[in-house]
């Protein structure tokens, strides 16, 4: 019975959210507000638990280095006070500094040089490789901003935009079928958690 009730509640939430497609209404808003509270609760709990497991427990065990990130994390809350908000700049600086450092380090090789290397190697592997090479060279020319796209550059950009558009089409398709799967998943939920148990199947 508990599972049928769960299924019923879940189904009502699904219908409330889906009802937006027909018309904006109070049930849709209720569903959205509920998930807002639930997700913040889940995130808050899990992150506090993470601080406890991955920082407080090591500190208790004598690994005092973890005191620093805990203090930095707490300094973030100074943003709540207009006078003390500047203190939050310290943890932000560490977050941004480390984030930027690790990003730049890997980007140079992983997303620029290795991509160039692969493009060159592809060019000698056959027709498909040549197409990839042409695609990269021409599509990249679209991102040149200090020259007007006329003459040879203009032609290159026109070809490049076709490659970019095919790439965008593939993105669209991946997204569409993903959303379709999500809908099917929810229909399966309604069947398996509500309708079949209700019918005793």
């Amino acid at each position, binding site marked *: 019975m508990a599972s049928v009730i769960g299924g019923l509640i879940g189904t009502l939430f699904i219908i409330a959210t889906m009802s937006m497609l027909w018309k904006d209404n109070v049930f849709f808003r209720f569903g959205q507000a509920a998930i807002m509270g639930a997700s913040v609760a889940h995130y808050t709990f899990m992150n506090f638990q993470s601080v406890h497991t991955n920082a407080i427990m090591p500190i208790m065990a004598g690994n005092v280095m973890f005191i620093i990130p805990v203090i930095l994390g707490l300094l973030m809350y100074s943003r709540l006070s207009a006078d003390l908000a500047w203190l939050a700049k310290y943890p932000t600086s560490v977050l941004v500094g480390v984030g930027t450092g*690790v990003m730049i*380090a890997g980007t140079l090789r*992983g*997303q620029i040089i290795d991509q160039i290397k692969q493009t060159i190697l592809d060019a000698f592997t056959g027709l498909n490789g040549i197409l990839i090479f042409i695609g990269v060279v021409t599509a990249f020319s679209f991102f040149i901003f200090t020259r007007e796209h006329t003459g040879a550059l203009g032609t290159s950009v026109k070809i490049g935009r076709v490659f970019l558009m095919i790439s965008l089409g593939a993105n669209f398709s*991946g997204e569409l079928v*993903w959303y379709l799967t*999500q809908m*099917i998943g929810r229909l*399966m939920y309604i069947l398996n958690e509500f309708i079949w148990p209700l019918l005793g199947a």
Partner: protein
Amino acid sequence: MATAKERLAKTTRFYQIIWALCLIGMFIPLIYPLGLPVVLSEPVKDYYKQIADLPEGSVIAVSFGASASLLDEQEAQFLATWKTIFDYGHKVIWYCTTEDSPIVIRNELEVVKPESYGYTYGEDYVILPYSPLGEAGETAFALNIRSIYTTDIDGTSLDAIPLMQDINDQSGIDLLIFEYTACTSIEWVVRQWVVPYNKPVIATTLGCCGPMAAPYYPTQVQGFLSGSGAGTELEVVSGNPGPGAAMGDAKNLGILPFLVAVLWMNVKPFIGKEE
């Protein structure tokens, strides 16, 4: 000339009919399965091969960034991957990088039952708790696992877990499986695992992220599963049936009204129909 509101009403009605037809199309195969076969793609075959070709007993780390809301898209991938790993007798370290991952992985292992493959927790597999690693955390993990995790998900010290005795950093890991749901996060693994250590990496992700992972395949990321369709393919190639088959079935009829509508809109100008 119709007003904006009239136009809105008319357009919306047309779309609502298509939507309803799509919904009906999805429902039918869920009740009367079609059971169509699937055809395998290269990134999925390579993904499978990476796991299958490892020597038995190799250590696989799974950077597990699952989201509960997106399980419809990824559950088939996950279940088939875990079963494949167990089939080949590899050891696994899951480390949870999103708030949902600990719950998702525990629930899935209840379904897959590692014990039925002769696995023992702590010796053959281990789950590390949630920590919001992000890109910097991936760097730290690769450098020194214990700088991020000192215990497993149950609070047992890593030093007391047999599997973790000799594994301190990336050098103890033979293959990384990177699970992510924000398409650009594939860059993290390229930057923090592939560039500095040239570590073999395969990825599991959403359908929309596949085209964005493709530029890194097959040299930087050796294989990837993108979307539930790839999950279904892995079920087939690994011989481990799962929830992907039913999903695939429902897609068949669910997408048809959309395709017909696109076709109709393209034919319309030629038969003189109004916009």
